[in-house]
């Protein structure tokens, strides 16, 4: 177990004008489960690979347990990694795969076997130890890859989208298993994913990256409730938050005709308002919206529509309880809950209130 500290870590790839990872500073506590999340190509995997030592750090540095990792080879960092592809050695059995690192470290056969058995018990892999990766299902391979990481009892786990090759049902159950396992073992874990549901459900804290730049590091709840900018607001939450540019008049923003009082920067000309799908109320006053699509999910429904009489207006998403089921073509009058509206600067996209 160890703390991890990214100190302005930067990675530049040849031919790219902008760094793939741009001055990331990130403090990860001992035993913490931190999720790195962001869209494809945002630099989250590169950040993880820099921590594992598979990718050089061009500027800044990374500390593990307070030790500068510059010039330290991956094998000497005491970091275990679970790859997206699992990277299991196809010629070795599950047991040999799991014991490989232990044997490399000079551990005797009997002791390595014992350690593998312990890990296999936790992961319910005991009957599969003799099988080769080619004879295992995707979920079983994923567990062997996890087992290979935990037998080493490393300082840090690096997990690079380990669930992306599983089907939806298995992903949900494995998600919970990994989170529970991490809490049980207490090993500092950095987990990369592009799936915000994984990010929100697994980690103690979530770090959101965009274009190589760290946007916000916070608990899942705080990310959802107080996103620092429009990118985080738009990235976290499904369906996505409604972001609407609104002119400001007399200290109030005009959200498609519905007034929203502003606490700060009432002098700005324009702001961007963020309204989560569940932050609307349906009533007699507000924005009339022509319903274009209704997604019924049983307990709730998401309604998509545009302001009535403005077919080029912004598309709005509204979450409705079960009792309300409008039809396509209906007009629904909705108003934002003022206390739940996020206000962002129209130019920079940064949070104002």
């Amino acid at each position, binding site marked *: 177990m160890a703390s991890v500290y990214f100190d302005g870590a930067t990675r530049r790839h040849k031919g790219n004008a902008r760094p793939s990872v741009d001055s990331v500073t990130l403090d990860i506590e001992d035993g913490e489960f931190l999720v790195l999340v962001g869209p494809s190509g945002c630099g989250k995997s590169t950040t993880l690979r820099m921590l594992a*030592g*598979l990718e050089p750090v061009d500027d800044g540095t990374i500390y593990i347990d307070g030790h500068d990792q510059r010039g330290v*080879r991956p*094998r000497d960092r005491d970091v275990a*990694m679970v790859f997206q592809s699992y*990277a299991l050695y196809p*010629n070795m059995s599950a047991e040999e795969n799991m014991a490989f690192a232990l044997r490399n470290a000079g551990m005797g056969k009997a002791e390595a076997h014992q350690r593998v058995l312990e890990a296999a018990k936790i992961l319910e892999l005991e009957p599969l130890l003799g099988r080769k990766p080619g004879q295992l299902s995707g979920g079983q391979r994923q567990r062997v890859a996890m087992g290979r990481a935990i037998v080493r009892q490393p300082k840090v786990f690096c997990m690079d989208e380990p669930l992306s090759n599983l089907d939806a049902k298995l992903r949900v159950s494995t998600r919970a298993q990994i989170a529970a396992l991490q809490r049980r073992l207490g090993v500092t874990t950095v987990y990369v994913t592009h799936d915000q549901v994984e990010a929100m459900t697994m980690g103690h804290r979530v770090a959101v990256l965009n274009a190589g730049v760290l946007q916000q590091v916070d608990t899942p709840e705080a990310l959802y409730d107080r996103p620092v900018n429009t990118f985080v607001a738009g990235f976290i939450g499904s369906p996505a938050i409604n972001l609407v540019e609104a002119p400001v008049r007399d200290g109030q923003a005009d959200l498609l005709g519905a007034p929203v009082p502003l606490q700060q920067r009432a002098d700005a000309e324009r702001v961007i308002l963020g309204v989560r799908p569940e932050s609307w109320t349906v009533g007699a006053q507000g924005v009339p919206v022509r319903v274009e699509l209704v997604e019924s999910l049983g307990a709730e429904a998401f309604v998509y529509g545009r302001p009535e009489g403005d077919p080029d207006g912004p598309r709005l998403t509204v979450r409705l309880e079960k009792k309300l089921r409008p039809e396509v073509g209906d007009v629904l009058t909705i108003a934002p809950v003022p206390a739940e509206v996020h206000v962002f600067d129209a130019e920079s996209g940064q949070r104002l209130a």
Partner: protein
Amino acid sequence: MTAPPEISAPAPRSGPPAPVGKPPRRSGRPYGEWLLAAGLLLPNLLLLVLFTYRPLVDNIRLSFTDWNISAPVARYIGVQNYVAWFHDGNSHQVLLNTLIFTVATVGISMALGLALAMLLDQRLRGRNLVRSAIFAPFVISGAAVGLAFQFVFDPNFGMIRDLADRFLGVSVPDFYQQPGWALVMVTTTYIWKNLGYTFVIYLAALQGRRADLDEAAEIDGASAWRRFSKVLLPQLRPTTFFLSITVLLNSVQVFDIINVMTRGGPQGYGTTTLVYQVYRETFVNNKAGYGATIATIMFLILLVITVVQVRVMDRGMNS
């Protein structure tokens, strides 16, 4: 925007719905594919039968005759040629030469080819030039290489002699007079010429290998030797298998270099391999029946080796 049509859940039905509109087009007659396959395969099969299997059968038939290549008729003599070959003292020498030459060329060219491929798979300055230089001899004719290496190994003014004399201060053996050294000479020449083949195939395999396994091994703390033996070599197994068969078949059939450099000598059979013996008996001694016998023996040896190789590799890949 028009509203989508109303769709309600279908009423329960007892069978498939009645067809609406034209039925979909189905694939052609079932034997159409067979005809296509036959049409594509037949020309090749015909050539294979005419120019490979028919001569093979003819060769086996001739091995039971006393045919002199200049004579119009051949007489059936049973297994006399085979008995003669097994009793000929030189046959053992020829077999041993073939074995040494083949094992050395297959082993060394594969090991060296892999080592060079691993080296030149790294990001090194000028690696493309070196890659081309290693591959170039493979496209030169064996006769030309043999001729050039005659000068390299010349005991009086050859490059080897010059280098040994200048840097090591030792004299070199007479590669043309001593049978053992003559075999070393033709083997070295053959390896030099064909190294590019194993090199280029291994290089392609290395470039297609899984980078994530290398990274996993690096994180798992594997030493360079364990990364090579436990992670890289198993990935290269199909390539190694392919090379072991093709290099073996090519090595056993080498003729040009031996013919140009030593003509099977020195001292009679110093560098004579099975193929060279076939040539010598058939076209120098005119004993075509006897030559056919040696060719048949060679065919059987290669057949057995290849079958064993395939079995062993199959087992290795399945386990």
